[in-house]
């Protein structure tokens, strides 16, 4: 391969972070679109945080500055580092369960500009708090990152941004991977089923994700 072409390929400024989904074996779905909102939707143990960590790992390992707005203080930096995230490139904002603070923080971050990926974790907020989020926030966020290289990813239980999102990934949990004799099992991983709800028609994929354990 031509060395210059290889160099260009390595540092291609792509409109989407394709590697993010390639890393977890979902290349047929495409990548996380830059300058747009992506929703990662699913119940607990469906792999939402795993996908978000992969996004942070890809973006930070490219040298980009990323931010995680952690509404319910659920972020585990050990998992993120195991997935390959460069923690020095990651800004972590803990909101102590205050959804309003989380949205204001995201708004400030998006308007500051220059971030590669911003993850807003809304997975543990209650249904009542989710229903009280003004829809104008999503339009504001979409407008703020339009024509910028920023990926805004939402980790949530149910779809919230809806029409403002360019990509919606629906995650479902498959069987967990346990090994060992009955009574002496070890938890070794989990199966994740991913189906893009928007844009539709990109198929469905299933992947096995190992769990890091020092045990």
């Amino acid at each position, binding site marked *: 391969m031509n060395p210059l072409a290889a160099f260009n390929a390595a540092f291609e400024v792509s409109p989407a972070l394709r590697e993010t989904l390639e890393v977890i074996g979902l290349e047929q779905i495409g990548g996380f679109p830059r300058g747009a909102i992506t929703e990662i939707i699913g119940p607990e143990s469906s792999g939402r945080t795993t996908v978000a960590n992969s996004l942070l790992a890809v973006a930070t390992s490219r*040298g980009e500055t990323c931010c995680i707005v952690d509404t319910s203080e659920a972020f585990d930096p050990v998992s993120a580092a195991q997935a390959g995230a460069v923690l020095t490139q990651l800004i972590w904002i803990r909101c102590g369960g205050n959804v309003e603070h989380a949205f204001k923080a995201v708004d400030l971050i998006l308007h500051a500009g220059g971030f590669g990926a911003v993850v807003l974790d809304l997975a543990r907020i209650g249904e009542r708090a989710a229903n009280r989020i003004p829809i104008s926030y999503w339009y504001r966020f979409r407008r703020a990152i339009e024509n910028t290289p920023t990926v805004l990813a939402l980790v949530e239980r149910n779809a919230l941004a809806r029409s403002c999102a360019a990509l919606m990934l629906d995650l479902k949990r498959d069987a967990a991977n346990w090994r060992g004799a009955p009574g002496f099992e070890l938890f070794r991983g989990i199966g994740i089923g991913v189906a893009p709800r928007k844009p539709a028609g990109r198929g469905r994929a299933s992947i096995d994700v190992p769990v890091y354990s020092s045990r």
Partner: protein
Amino acid sequence: MFLCIRHDEAAALAALFTPWHELASPDTAIFDAARLERLLGSAEQIAQAVWEQSGRRASVALAAIPDAAVLAARNFAGISIIRDAAGELADLGLDRLPIEPDLLDTFDAWGVRTLGDLAALPENGLAGRLGDRALALQRLARGAIHRPLQIHKPPEVYEDSIALDHPIELLEPLLFLIARILNEQCARLMAHGLAASEVRVTLTLEDRSEYVRTLRLPAPMRDSRALLKLLQLDLEAHPPQAAMAAVLVALNPVEPRRVQHGLFLPQTPAPDRLELTLARIRGLVGERNVGVPELLDTHRPAPFHLCGRHAASAAFVCRPKLAPQMAFRYFQPLLAAKVELHNNRPARLTAPGIYGRVVTSAGPWRTSGDWWTLTPWNRDEWDVALNDGALYRIYAEPDGRWHVEGVYD
């Protein structure tokens, strides 16, 4: 004529007469008295004035070349006027010169013991035998070194203060005063090609106590508006407890941050803008909730903490082969749980928002540590899968209390 002062406070004495002076050593200052004749009179009059000003304790010397004046001031008390440096300093010993011990031994072995002896040696022979060092000393002994003065510049101080006639209680009028000082000091920094790495505001309160706030910036800045906004956010978060009678703002000058941008480096937030944004967010969510995650070298559960400093800069990172890893999510605050056991293994889990039969479990993983500190831990961990498919990490404390630590996601 150059005037040399030898005194413990030579710099301060010289500064009384001219700002253009050289500090040969902490107790020796030189300036050109000939340039001050129109202002202060002849060189002899200036020497007399300097001597009087020092309380008649300084050694003052006048000579046509700076180094001869220094030699005379260091070796003669009172006022010395050197008209013929080679002749009048000829009797001084060689050890009065800035000479290396090995060279001094050589001259001593040759029987050369005074400046006059050294000045009388043939130049070519001296240069051939002892090199340039000896030649430079001979020129000094002959009073033949003409050099410009190296003007001493005191370090610039970027600070200013305002004392108020009447104490002020509100932050807004205080910010007007701080803005005035910051504008002036940032303009000075800009003119000198510097930036500030730290801003210190000292408020003298009505009760004579001092209230100090220090902002340490992650990257040097000199934008007065950005600095003012940072100070405003900081003072709003930490207001003084009394009315303010005086304000002092000091900037720590450093070289500005110079970054070589690369064509293929990704875009990163501008450091000053990012700092301003994070300061606003800190005001919203609290100071301890914004930063960079840092892993700790410990076996303690949740081995990480939030580090306040960040350095947002694009860099080529050695990219490892990325592979997905199952992530974990913590529950904050911890969920107290009720666990039913069957054959000493969890059989049913009940916690706020979580209820189900345990289908599979792995454990117990017994960990403990830090028993020698005030915050020891001791727990039995289990990984459990419920009948709805969710996977949790639960643990039991020695007193039998169960908690759900988090969920695999």
